[in-house]
């Protein structure tokens, strides 16, 4: 079974081609890394999956359906450079998540708040960048959904926060067996998470495969990345 299927998807912003006849298939129940340099089309790829942007051409299937708000009941999405409502406290943010997301697991959220080192009474506005990122990740990970999309969850975050976030992802994945798709530039730290990787450049897939197979054939994922983009 495939969680995400894209056939010849083209997305243009004016004259810029963000996705160029993108064709890929992501299996269910695995963690897939989407890797590539800035401007490779990774964020546009994620946005098309949740219906925040529409392709000019091509077919997209997410969990067997076309992207829509109805499919988003089963999809948790952490956007690149998004922010949470600054006037909430951590507790209010979790309560809001519980109220608006039908599959939100309050116990899991509270567990993650504790394990990722956040204080319930702290105002979001007063949190550091890393803490804000952790909170937003909690609001995604606490959802019992089939598909989890994380676009640059480690961007601009210190090493300790990154490790805690990875810890949170592993904890959630081992409990739920979800399909997780992560894009990141922190390949070295996230490499151990991936079951398979997709390398993207200029809106196209330039290489894809299972991590173990790629490692045996070409060495570490980080080395493959360097070889492809340097």
């Amino acid at each position, binding site marked *: 079974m495939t969680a995400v299927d894209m056939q010849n998807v083209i997305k243009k912003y004016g004259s810029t081609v963000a996705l160029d006849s993108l064709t890929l298939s992501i299996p269910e129940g695995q963690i897939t890394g989407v890797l590539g340099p800035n401007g490779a089309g990774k964020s546009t790829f994620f946005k098309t999956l949740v219906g*925040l942007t529409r392709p000019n051409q091509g077919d997209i299937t997410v969990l067997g359906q076309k992207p829509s708000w109805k499919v*988003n009941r089963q999809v948790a999405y952490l956007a690149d*450079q*998004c922010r949470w409502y*600054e006037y909430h406290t951590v507790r209010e943010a979790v309560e809001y998540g519980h*109220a608006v997301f*039908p599959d939100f697991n309050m116990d899991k959220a509270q567990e993650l708040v504790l394990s990722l080192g956040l204080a319930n009474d702290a105002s979001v506005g007063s949190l550091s960048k890393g803490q804000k990122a952790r909170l937003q990740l909690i609001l995604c990970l606490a959802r019992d959904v089939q598909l989890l999309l994380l676009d640059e969850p480690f961007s601009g975050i210190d090493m300790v926060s990154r490790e805690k976030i990875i810890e949170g992802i592993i904890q959630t994945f081992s409990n739920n067996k979800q399909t997780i798709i992560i894009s990141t530039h922190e390949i070295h730290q996230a490499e151990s998470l991936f079951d398979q990787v997709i390398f993207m450049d200029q809106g196209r897939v330039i290489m894809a495969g299972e991590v173990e197979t790629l490692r045996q054939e070409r060495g570490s994922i980080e080395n493959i990345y360097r070889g492809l983009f340097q």
Partner: protein
Amino acid sequence: MTRFWALIDNSGKFNKDHNYTANLRWQLFNTLLVLLTSVGFSYSLGPFSLLAFVPVFLLFAAFISASSQISREWREQTISWWLTVPCSRSELLASKLLGALIRLTKIAGISIVATALIALGWILVKPDIWTMPAISVAALMASKLYILTIIVLPLAMALGMFFAVLMRSRFKFFAPFIIAFVGAAFGAGANYLLPILGKTEVDTQLTLISQIPVFNLSLTAIVLRVGLMLVIAAVILALSSYLLAEQTEV
């Protein structure tokens, strides 16, 4: 708390954002501007002209309040969270409208009390001019304006919301023309339809009997007019939902 109420509640709380409350000087400037305009109005036209000023102010506030509820999601970079809440675009926009309404009710309450206090001040200063009959006539005229404002308010809010969505859609460059067209079309439509629902002068006649204000208002006429405006606002909401779902990208 249900999902829809949580969305409304969150929209209502949008004002608490510290980035905005921190901008105290700007708020003080606005308050001063409103106060000075009010005093200027009342000095040149009499205290109860203020009561006419407030409904006009409320209509602008309704437009801006509804519009800012939407545009701030983009500005504050919370838009991807808002738009991926698993409910329809109509539901999301309706929650914003109700959030704006909560905010507007507070503004209206404060404005009316402030206006009444300023008007009272003038009555105390010039009791020879502002006698009971004069006050009653002015109050009755103002009441009529308030009723009209309440009737038009949903339309102003829906147009504000439509404007905010339009400005984020692929049609934003045509926004001035679209707004002018939509405003004119709905204005003309409302102007055409309103008299059918009741003869305005008869249904909303306000008179004085022994110097006591008597409201000769037909409740049916008011309900029908409010209903009509709500229907028009719902049409604009549907149009905005379409724009947000099909013609807007993040």
